[in-house]
């Protein structure tokens, strides 16, 4: 494996290499690899660990919760209880019921599941797209660069929210995957620009040149040398993308342009609950609260990752 050339890594690297190349390190000094160093710094950040635990809990609740809940109380997100309309939270309906007797807990968990899935998929697609487009534009240069950057500028100009709002109801039969693609298409451009800039400096580095002269193909250089060396930036970016995708999706669904009934997302639920938020708060507060908890947890984790991956940051503790 080549040495990490990520500018964020260099300082940590120097610390590690000094010990390895120089005389025998005093036994009191513990030499840590980069991965364990980052993990250690991340673990030291109490806020981030709480956020991570919360996020895991939300995942478990969203994906296992509905099954367990159905076993205990017998309600699913699509069933209706004709004996309980607008009933407040109770042991029978943990989060209460809606105007037509739907169970709010089952619906909220289903919505959370959709929101988490959409957030993760959008982050995966948009970050991959950003990495590939940015690295190709930077590595090949010339016309490839010009065409790709022109595309980036064009997509940045388009009023994304409006366009997705117009287009997505037209695909209501194709389901939520189209929504994921639409959100992802408008979410990668700024990162791609940053990646391109980093590629421009990375491609002059010795390890890339060595790979090039020993006959590694362009694709090999891009995917095996350039992109892995920008992984810390990509990880941070993906985390941020999860939070913004969840907010974008719920915003679209709030206006009825996102996830279509009978399926639910947190945005739909919040929109339905808004009208009676004062009189029947359980229709609104649970969905809204979980949405905020999710995005908050994701952004705290992203911030802590940034600190842990950044060697010059003093906040995450010393490098040793």
């Amino acid at each position, binding site marked *: 494996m080549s040495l990490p050339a990520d500018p964020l890594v260099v300082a940590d690297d120097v610390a590690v290499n000094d010990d390895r190349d120089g005389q025998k390190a005093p036994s009191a000094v513990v030499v840590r690899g980069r991965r364990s160093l980052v993990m250690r710094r991340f673990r030291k950040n109490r806020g981030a660990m709480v956020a991570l635990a919360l996020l895991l809990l939300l995942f478990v609740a969203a994906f296992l919760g509905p099954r367990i809940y159905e076993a205990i109380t017998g309600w699913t997100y699509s069933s209706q209880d004709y004996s309980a309309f607008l009933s407040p939270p109770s042991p029978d309906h943990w989060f209460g019921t809606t105007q037509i007797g739907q169970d709010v807990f089952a619906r909220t968990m289903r919505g959370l599941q959709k929101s988490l899935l959409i957030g993760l998929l959008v982050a995966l697609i948009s970050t991959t797209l950003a990495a590939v487009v940015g690295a190709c534009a930077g590595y090949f240069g010339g016309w490839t660069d010009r065409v790709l950057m022109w595309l980036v500028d064009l997509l940045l100009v388009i009023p994304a929210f409006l366009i997705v709002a117009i287009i997505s109801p037209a695909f209501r039969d194709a389901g939520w995957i189209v929504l994921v693609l639409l959100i992802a298409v408008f979410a990668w451009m700024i990162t791609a620009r940053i990646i391109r800039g980093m590629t421009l400096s990375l491609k002059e580095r010795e390890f890339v040149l060595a790979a090039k002269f020993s006959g590694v193909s362009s694709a090999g250089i891009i995917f095996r040398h350039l992109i892995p060396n920008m992984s810390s930036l990509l990880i941070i970016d993906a985390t941020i993308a999860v939070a913004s995708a969840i907010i974008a999706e719920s915003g679209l669904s*709030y206006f009825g342009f996102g996830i279509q009934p009978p399926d639910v997302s947190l945005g739909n639920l*919040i929109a339905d609950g*808004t009208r009676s938020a004062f009189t029947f708060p359980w229709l609104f507060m649970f969905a809204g609260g979980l949405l905020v908890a999710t995005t908050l947890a994701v952004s705290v984790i992203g911030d802590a990752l940034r600190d842990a991956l950044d060697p010059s940051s003093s906040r995450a503790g010393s490098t040793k």
Partner: protein
Amino acid sequence: MGRFLLKRLVNYLVLVIVATTLAYFVASLVLNPRAAYEGRNPPPPAAVVDQQLSAYGVNDEDPLLGRYADWIGGVLLHGDFGMTVNGQEINDQLGSRALVSLRLLIVGSIIGAVLGVLAGVVSAIKKYRPTDRLITAYAFFFIATPVFFTAVLLKYGALSVNNAAGSTLLYYTGYETPGLDAGFFGTLGDQVAHLILPTLSIALGQIAFFSRYQRNAMLDVMNSDFLRTAEAKGLTRRKALYKHGLRTALIPMATLLAYSFGTLAVGATFTEKIFGWHGMGEWVVDSITRNDINVVATVTLFTAIFILISGFLSDVIYAVLDPRVRV
């Protein structure tokens, strides 16, 4: 400086044209104005529907380019934005709706940017102290919270305040009391009272957003050599920070300002919808559901021009702050 600004202005004008054109084409290809007539009982004859749609410039059987040329020609030559799908003149509503939206957008963005920058500076100077932690916690919360949640919570808070006070202190529906006759100052006061909550709902998020970036920019500057030099030549810490540090730290904010107006415009859409303001944002959401192509294009043009003006302003600020671009 003039050349720099002129170049930016031309750049923004091209962007406005591209954005509007794209919105028009996408809306024309996807939306179906015919749906407004299909639900009628008895169904109108096809020829009549065609004639009506052609008269409004939204008939999908007329060539798209011709329709676009008619619409954009009307806008550019006569300032005529065409008809809605119900046959009303868009121009009749445009003025009042634009005023309603602009009130919200301008006040919201000024409060958001100014308070956000202040909060960021304070946060950076008081690094890791309780003030910084408080501001950071605030920023994280409001960056993670979508506008539609903040807005409803604010409404809820206002309701509790009003109940506790026994009278309407905070207004949360509409932008003025209908039929109010209280003279100039009475009306003004009434409109300001209506403005408070909606503005808060978008300003809270903007403040959070700006304070994070300003804090980072300020921290970078505080570690720089030129600030140490300024102190070494005899300036006090405070003076050095405000005279040299803040000015440098504000430069990246100017660029950010231009980017943030897009988010602001989308956020204002939620605010308008929730607080019952009849502004541009509410209009565009309703017109997508009503398949109203001309309105969608008009609102896009409005938003693009708003972003153009604010982006241009941020370039002016940039040029004032950073002497390098003036060469």
